[in-house]
């Protein structure tokens, strides 16, 4: 196990190094002079020179890359051209809200996807299976931004069942102020017992959560179904059938556990995918997360901020993969040997 751990960590580090390089290259591809953009229109030649020196724009490319890496490592992720605050602080303020949205969506997706997958496998080729196949296919094929607009229009604007936008009712900031510990609103509201904000946040989460959950739920349902059908065809299932177990209990009691292994690794992939998909949803629902930040940065050609978002999400993605691999290594010794 230690050897597997070391190898897997080494791989992850290599990937992160590559990600940093790639982000650097993309940033340097931007047309125009970041020093001019930073120093502002009224900058004197001296101020411009200072800005150039600050960004190291006069150094060679490898030297620039090296100082970029060094800055990243010391926590200097650059300064946003738009907000003029450190990108790291901006990301830190925005990320918890994204985590909240994607976390809620994933819980929902798992809670719906796995039972639905079991249902489809149990009634393979029957009507429920057909329904799940069509439904899950639609869920993975729907453009999220459009689904977000449609749900918002129908259920918030027209019917008024849910709030139109935002993370929670802003008025609660004064009537029931939230004490921050983790910066994730829903968690903080829970641990400090702030029920008004908790219920308001949950209420605001419903529509964006549903939209972000659509794709993962569809994929998880398909994967569960496929894995279960395969497990049900294995030798052990034949034995269980011979021992008189019904199809339902074979699926849920014996086949589900091994079938969940591929589903687990899928969830890591889906997690990162959902964060990026969430970008499109956050903009529609005015959710104060990374996606809204990214969208605003794109429209301001704010390269340091875009690079920051790219890097952060890529690192989260690598980490998620790493965690799942290690978990699988613990659960299933065969993985370690690979």
């Amino acid at each position, binding site marked *: 196990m230690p050897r597997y751990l070391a190898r897997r960590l080494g791989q992850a580090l290599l990937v992160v190094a590559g990600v940093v390089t790639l982000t650097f290259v993309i940033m340097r591809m931007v047309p125009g002079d970041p020093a001019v953009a930073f120093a502002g229109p009224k900058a004197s030649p001296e101020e411009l020179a200072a800005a150039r020196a600050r960004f190291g724009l006069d150094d060679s490319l490898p030297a620039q890359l090296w100082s970029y890496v060094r800055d990243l490592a010391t926590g200097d992720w650059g300064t946003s051209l738009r907000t003029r605050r450190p990108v790291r602080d901006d990301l830190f303020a925005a990320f918890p809200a994204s985590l909240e949205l994607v976390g809620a969506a994933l819980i929902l997706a798992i809670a719906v996807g796995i039972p639905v997958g079991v249902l489809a496998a149990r009634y393979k080729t029957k009507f429920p299976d057909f329904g799940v196949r069509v439904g899950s296919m639609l869920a993975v094929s729907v453009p999220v931004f459009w689904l977000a607009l449609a749900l918002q229009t129908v259920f918030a*604007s027209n019917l008024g069942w849910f709030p139109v936008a935002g993370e929670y009712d802003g008025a609660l900031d004064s009537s029931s102020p939230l004490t921050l510990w983790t910066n994730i609103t829903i968690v903080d509201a829970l641990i400090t017992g702030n029920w008004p904000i908790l219920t308001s946040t949950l209420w605001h989460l419903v529509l964006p959560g549903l939209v972000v959950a659509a794709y993962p739920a569809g994929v998880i349902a398909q994967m569960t179904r496929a894995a279960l059908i395969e497990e049900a065809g294995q030798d052990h299932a034949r034995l269980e059938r011979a021992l008189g177990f019904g199809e339902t209990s074979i699926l849920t009691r014996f086949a589900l556990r091994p079938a969940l292994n591929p589903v687990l690794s899928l969830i890591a992939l889906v997690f990162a995918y959902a964060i990026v998909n969430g970008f499109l949803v956050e903009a529609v629902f005015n959710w104060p997360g990374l996606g809204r930040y990214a969208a605003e940065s794109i429209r301001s050609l704010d390269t340091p901020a875009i690079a920051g978002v790219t890097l952060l*999400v890529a690192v989260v993605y690598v980490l998620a993969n790493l965690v799942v691999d290690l978990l699988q290594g613990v659960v299933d010794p065969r993985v370690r040997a690979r």
Partner: protein
Amino acid sequence: MTTEPVRLRRTLPRLPDRFAAFGAVLLLLIVLAALFAPWLAPYPPDELRPLEALLPPSAEHWFGTDSVGRDVLTRILYGARTSLVIAVAVLAASATVGVTLGVVAGYAGGLVRDVIMRVTDVFLAFPALLLSLALAVVLQPSVTTVIVAIAVTWWPWYARLSSSVAASVATRSYVDAARCLGVPAPKIVLRHVLPNSLTPVLVQLSLDAGGVILTAAALSYLGLGAQEPAAEWGLMVEQGQDLFTTNWWVVTFPGLAILLTAFAFNVLGEGLRNALDPRRAVIR
């Protein structure tokens, strides 16, 4: 992962799968619509009639008109062309690059394989939409930009896939035999390794087309892709989004068009995979 396709093929039903056939028919209709758009469309695609703006669906305009009086149905038909062109171009480019690198990596093994696969890992660490986003910001917004941006994020999947297939093929005895007979490496790759890698790649291509279409639409929705006056579904949704509550048809039909096209590709792709290559993961 695809080392024992033959044994596994028994466990799942083969084609004909009615669901997959439905996807194929739907896709065929979409392709026909794209091909014959100029003949099918009731109006010219960018004829502006500001006085007839935002008309609801009627006998003259089945899907209504947009904010400058263009026929929405016409633009959806032409939009099918844009979407399919993007999908084909992205998949062709990324499959060519990916398969080439993958087969080389898989066959050569050793250091070459390590280097190629580590680079692939780096690209795989970016969710496709994210890297496309970053790239699309740097480049001028256009359909070409969308194609380049998505292709850059898509090829590693083919590299990874074909390298594992190629690696397994490379250890087969007939390849060993060819090597012993002194057949040069490029020839072995072309004659034996490449053809054997193609089936999973083809399956993957059909599975991916839906994803490419969704990503392209998302980029255009964000204003980073197709530009006015081009007819593109994502762009149409973006332009109409403020009108959703008052003029639903402007947004609803382009969105449905994206949904149906991605759906058709996904259903067909799943059917092909079940028939040809059942062990491959549902998504990557």
